[in-house]
């Protein structure tokens, strides 16, 4: 792949050999030779090209396996019992099997983003041409695609240039997936290295997707002042026709808004969104509204508010058609990846389709042309509106709901199905006695999975009852979210690069991922606020970005209204949808490139080593649920950025934990002296699930420390760590001595306490090196 080229297509050319039509010049490195950065060692790396780097990390952060099943059922030699030291019929061990499942999940995740990017880029090329310039940030951005430059060693300039990047990604994913075949890779650490590779590819494809859509659709271009937009149930004007879009791939939603624009309908129809399509369409038009993250699907559909539902791809409830049918809401499927069994109407006339949808002759339609979808969705919504009488109502009246609750036999099967072990049966009893408070409390921690309903032995529509009990809460869901701004500007990087690398901005905390929260979304907002107040840089994306927005302080302001959208200490930076996550890793990479002037091009290992040792970034995926979350996390790991997940995260089959008590693990090479220097367990873990938000906050503070921190930086970081530990966990941490390198590292306000501890622990001063994990090869100095 290393030789894949930039190509120029010429529709027609006259040459001595005659006239040739449709010729494409694929010019070797020529185009790139206008880019004077020298090529690094690993452009378009193969699946083992960065294995040494991975193994270096994995030596510190050994997998702690948490098998989620004792068995393997992946082939018909099985099932195989892998408990203890038993091997499967293919010879695989339990550790390898766990890593294999992680790899499988990561492949699914990376494939999802890559296929998403491919579909998007292909669509945008059709619409705008392959020569459409990439422009993710106007004059503010020179390094337009840091991950692409880093991984592939190429510098994409047009939409068409992105195709080769996707070719590479698809090839790598195919090979990585092959590794999960029975009788392929069986070494746990090699499997982990492949997981890291998959994660790297995932970030590459996410970057491609987002810079393509930002450029072509003119979404906010690295704009810290992206507009504040509406989010929440309560922001919808239910007197208007309402369109609901769900998913991740924005073209159909864009076409809906374009159709409205062209037909002077803006303002007369509500366009509402759930999940990333919601986010991305508010980047396109600030008139669009977001309802909430993935877990809002059932509650919103059952509210009866949407007049039509348009789904594209990813994270869409697979029973959306059933739920919609119950309320006679037509559904349009728009992605080949999610056809819902609907008839393909792409070839039909819009009028006929609309008639069928409105009359209820058909539940929905599968339409592969986004422009058609735009027209049909809008026109159908307008015609459905009068038909949907009980617009504000739900399926049940409050009285009916209480009658339903009375049927509860207290069998507790609901609770035994609830992933958050919510006390549903108790709440049901109370509700049956006309006391909705407990059930309304459940609403706050409920992830909307309706597993309780599925399990109910009395077929009580439990989730509907929860919604009814929480009625007022829903109506009050009206907040403001800063539209996804896209990338971080080069100038911002230049400004914060120094303070970050020196540790004087205590860290970058990225709240990302899905909404499988253990105890309600407010926890996430509380964390974000805590760290914004502590002058960390807060980045948000996807469902996490929405959840943080769905929170109000005493003055009624959402976190995005309190904090600026700049990538600066105390900033609250919503980069955008899931694919915008690449801007977070991209920012870390850009610190190495723009601030530290390291070569990016095809130079993965050196840059990752830089980020790992110097950039105090921490990812928090509090409600991580999906395979995409797995691959996104893996992409951060390979860059040396630790990731914290909530308690459900233990189901990802393994943690990558450091052993703070193993002193030998925490030496780095001092690039200045060539010596090995003990730097303490910083960051202590690469992937860890914690139990409560309190523990998460302490962990964020702890994992923001880096070997390169100056004394001033370290003292600052220690202050946060100790302060949070004391406040949230109730005592001084007992491992302070591992983080103090010089007396100067000790926070002045805590000096006395800490010196006492250090004495007790036999602490000795060491030095602050110029840290690197890379062993210089012989010959180089």
């Amino acid at each position, binding site marked *: 792949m290393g030789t894949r080229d930039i190509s120029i297509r010429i529709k027609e050319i006259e040459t001595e050999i005659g006239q040739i039509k449709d010729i494409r010049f694929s010019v070797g490195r020529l185009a790139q030779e206008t880019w004077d950065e020298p090529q690094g060692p690993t452009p378009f790396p193969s699946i083992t090209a960065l294995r040494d780097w991975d193994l270096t990390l994995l030596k510190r952060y050994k997998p702690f396996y948490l098998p989620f099943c004792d068995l393997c059922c992946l082939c018909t030699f099985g099932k195989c019992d892998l*408990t203890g030291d038993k091997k499967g019929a293919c010879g695989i061990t339990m550790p390898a099997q766990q890593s294999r499942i992680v790899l499988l999940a990561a492949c699914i995740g990376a494939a999802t983003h890559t296929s998403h990017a491919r579909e998007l880029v292909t669509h945008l090329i059709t619409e705008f041409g392959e020569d459409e310039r990439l422009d993710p940030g106007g004059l503010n951005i020179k390094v337009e695609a840091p991950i692409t430059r880093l991984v592939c060693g190429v510098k994409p300039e047009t939409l068409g240039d992105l195709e080769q990047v996707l070719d590479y990604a698809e090839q790598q994913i195919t090979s990585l997936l092959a590794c999960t075949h029975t009788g392929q890779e069986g070494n746990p650490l090699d499997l982990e290295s492949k997981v890291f590779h998959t994660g790297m590819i995932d970030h590459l494809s996410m970057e491609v997707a987002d810079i393509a859509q930002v450029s072509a659709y003119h979404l906010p271009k690295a704009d810290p002042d992206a507009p504040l937009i509406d989010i929440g149930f309560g922001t919808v004007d239910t007197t208007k026709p309402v369109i609901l879009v769900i998913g991740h791939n924005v073209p159909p939603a864009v076409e809906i808004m374009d159709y409205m624009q062209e037909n002077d309908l803006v303002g007369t129809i509500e366009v509402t969104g759930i999940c990333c399509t919601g986010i991305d369409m508010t980047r396109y038009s600030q008139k669009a509204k977001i309802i909430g993250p993935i877990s809002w699907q059932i509650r919103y559909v059952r509210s009866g508010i949407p007049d039509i539902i348009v789904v594209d791809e990813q994270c869409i409830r697979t029973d959306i058609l059933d739920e919609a049918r119950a309320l006679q809401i037509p559904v349009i499927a728009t992605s080949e990846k999610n056809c819902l069994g609907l008839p393909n109407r792409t070839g039909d006339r819009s009028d006929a389709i609309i008639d069928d949808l409105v009359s209820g002759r058909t539940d929905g339609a599968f339409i592969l042309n986004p422009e058609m979808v735009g027209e049909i969705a809008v026109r159908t919504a307008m015609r459905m509106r009068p038909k949907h009488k009980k617009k504000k109502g739900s399926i049940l009246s409050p009285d009916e709901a209480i009658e339903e609750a009375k049927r509860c036999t207290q069998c507790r099967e609901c609770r035994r199905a609830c992933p958050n072990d919510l006390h549903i049966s108790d709440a049901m009893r109370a509700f049956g006695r006309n006391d909705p408070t407990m059930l309304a409390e459940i609403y706050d921690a409920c992830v909307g999975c309706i597993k309780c309903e599925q399990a109910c032995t009395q077929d009580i529509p439990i989730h509907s009852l929860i919604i009814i009990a929480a009625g007022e809460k829903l109506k009050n869901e009206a907040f403001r979210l800063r539209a996804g701004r896209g990338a971080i500007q080069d100038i911002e990087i230049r400004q914060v690069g120094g303070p970050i690398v020196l540790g004087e901005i205590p860290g970058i905390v990225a709240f990302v991922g899905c909404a499988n929260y253990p105890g309600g979304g407010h926890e996430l907002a509380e964390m974000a606020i805590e760290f914004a107040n502590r002058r960390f840089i807060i980045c948000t994306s996807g469902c996490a970005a929405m959840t943080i927005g769905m929170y109000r302080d005493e003055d009624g302001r959402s976190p995005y209204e309190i904090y600026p959208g700049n990538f600066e200490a105390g900033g609250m930076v919503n980069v955008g949808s899931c694919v915008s996550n690449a801007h977070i890793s991209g920012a870390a990479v850009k610190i190495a490139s723009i601030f530290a002037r390291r070569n990016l091009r095809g130079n993965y290992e050196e840059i990752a080593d830089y980020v790992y040792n110097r950039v105090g970034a921490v990812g928090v995926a509090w409600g991580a649920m999906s395979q995409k979350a797995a691959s996104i996390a893996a992409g951060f790991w390979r860059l040396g950025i630790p990731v914290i997940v909530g308690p459900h995260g233990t189901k990802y089959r393994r943690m990558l934990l450091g052993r703070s008590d193993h002193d030998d693990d925490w030496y780095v090479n001092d690039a200045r002296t060539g010596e090995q220097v003990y730097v303490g367990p910083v960051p202590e873990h690469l992937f860890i699930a914690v139990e409560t938000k309190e523990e998460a906050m302490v962990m964020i503070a702890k994992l923001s420390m880096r070997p390169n921190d100056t004394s001033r930086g370290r003292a600052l970081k220690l202050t946060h760590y100790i302060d949070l530990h004391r406040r949230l966990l109730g005592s001084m941490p007992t491992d302070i001595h591992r983080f103090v390198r010089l007396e100067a590292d000790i926070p002045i306000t805590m000096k006395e306490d800490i010196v006492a501890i250090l004495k007790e622990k036999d602490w000795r001063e060491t030095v602050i090196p110029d840290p690197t994990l890379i062993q210089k090869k012989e010959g180089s100095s």
Partner: protein
Amino acid sequence: MSQDAWLTAEVAGPKKASLITKPEIADAMIRRAKRPIFIVGSIAAEIDLEEKKLIDYIILMARRCSIQVVATANTNSEFLKRNFTPDAVMPAVDIGNRLTDPTWQGVDGKGPHDLAIFVGLPYQMAWTILSGLKNFAPNLKTISLDNVYQPNARWSFSNISVKNWIMNLEAILGNREA
């Protein structure tokens, strides 16, 4: 008494916890252990067991049987509120990980633990960590003292009522006194 997991879908595999059918079983295991350790999760302070909280029972047990205690997450605060200082504070997966290391000398550095008693963690988190220990800490015995069946422990209660649970905990305490 059944070996059905508390969360219906978290079914047990071929290797699953034996049932603590009577408190003597747990008591004997604790008694026989040379270096037992409690891993106490954040829910321990939330659960009402009539006039006490679960954490209060744990403190009593830990004191009477000299069991080292690891408090995960913010459980530490709850212990301290009750004038009990845990031997260590660390994330549940961190202590889980260390327990799989046969060379680890325990929270006090005096040698590997031979029994880990889990209580008060979120069900699925305990499930997965106990799965890690079941598979990768062959020399460690594990007990779950929650009132739900934890298939991946070596020993666990079945899904029992709070009343039954209290009875069992009292009996374990009582036995030590006797």
